[in-house]
């Protein structure tokens, strides 16, 4: 039986990827960001999953305005690294897990979440920056990845509550897969940031840290936070944080497990480019 052992949460700021690709990680500005991921790289070496179910959003890369799926699961055997206008990032291609992905699609749709199934999709920084942050610069990514793209570009995006419930459905799907796999679920994006208009540059440390606290201790309550609070408090692009609730919904305590997950690592830093960087690693016990 496949099992979810841990969840990882991280921002996916494109400039972080660029800093790695251009060899700037030792510059003082970036050193402060990467120092926060050193324990994570050790942790993942010691806790290497077989598959990561990676929740992220596409940033007008694979999906233009022609088709805007709210939830899209990548079921392909591999996913190319997208050219987002600056040339593709020099990182390995992403290998999928078609058997598990198809199984999850079938199970989750039967649990009333109408996923879009995608068999061809280039993946952008939303997916590759978290891999780089957690794994550094390997020749090949050390595990398979199931990309799960959430529309957070065009409003209305799915609610936190819907995302949290979806995470629970994904947990059931993964746990019913007949294969011995260690699976992690990652939620990415955020934290507070606004990239548009005269209000660009918004950061809200207090709100972000309360989000991190509640994600650990009160995910059910956090899932009730309406969109408008994200927009007002965490900026128009801070809405990406709803994706963290998918990963949190997949943890054992939400499904009636006795114990809260253990916080293996927590990190918060401002800024990376326009954005507050937040990061958590939670292990099921």
């Amino acid at each position, binding site marked *: 039986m496949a099992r979810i052992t841990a969840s990882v949460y991280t921002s996916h700021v494109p400039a972080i990827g660029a800093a790695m690709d251009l060899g700037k990680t030792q510059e003082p500005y970036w050193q402060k960001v990467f120092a926060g991921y050193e324990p994570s790289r050790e942790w993942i070496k010691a806790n290497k999953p077989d598959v990561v179910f990676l929740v992220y959003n596409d940033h007008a890369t694979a999906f233009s305005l022609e088709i805007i799926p709210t939830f899209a699961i990548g079921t392909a055997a591999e996913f190319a690294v997208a050219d987002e206008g600056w040339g593709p990032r020099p990182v390995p291609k992403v290998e999928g897990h078609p058997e598990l992905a198809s199984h999850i699609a079938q199970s989750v749709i039967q649990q009333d979440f109408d996923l879009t199934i995608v068999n061809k999709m280039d993946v952008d920084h939303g997916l590759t920056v978290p891999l780089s942050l957690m794994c550094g610069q390997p020749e090949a990514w050390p595990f398979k990845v199931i990309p799960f793209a959430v529309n957070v570009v065009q409003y*209305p995006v799915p609610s936190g509550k819907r995302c949290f419930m979806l995470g629970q459905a994904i947990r059931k799907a993964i746990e019913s897969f007949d294969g011995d796999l260690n699976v992690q679920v990652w939620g990415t994006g955020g934290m507070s940031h606004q990239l*548009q208009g005269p*209000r660009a540059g918004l950061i809200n440390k207090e709100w972000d840290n309360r989000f991190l606290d509640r994600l650990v201790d009160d995910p059910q309550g956090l899932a009730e936070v309406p969109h408008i609070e994200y927009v007002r408090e965490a900026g128009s692009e801070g809405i990406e944080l709803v994706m963290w609730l998918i990963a949190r919904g997949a943890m054992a305590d939400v499904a009636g497990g006795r114990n809260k997950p253990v916080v293996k690592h927590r990190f918060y830093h401002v800024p990376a480019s326009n954005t507050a960087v937040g990061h958590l690693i939670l292990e099921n016990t």
Partner: protein
Amino acid sequence: MPLDKPYKDVPGTTIFDADQSRKGYWLNQFCMSLMKAPNRERFKADERAYLDEWPMTEEQKQAVLARDLNRCIQLGGNIYFLAKIGATDGKSFQQMAGSMTGMSEEEYRDMMIGGGRPSTWTPPAKEQK
């Protein structure tokens, strides 16, 4: 009954909702075309001619030519699409975001290093409607 849009009064912010998306469809699709290198070259060689290939409004074309991202957003543009223009121009996301705030590049960068803009920010009086 009208739909509830509580985000309309957030200062200095335009939420890219279905209405904005409808208005900005061709503007954003033009931006999307700049993901291909040959299109970037053709756009750079003659911006006006390239824009005229798209069924965009004249206002949208003028806003692109002026690189007025705030205006582009008012006219239905979305920042992740508009970022393709910035990539074509060799601009970073921070330069693009900063350009919408009325601050210099250095002022904006320093504001971010100093912890960013507070969520309680309101526009200077002269910009308020």
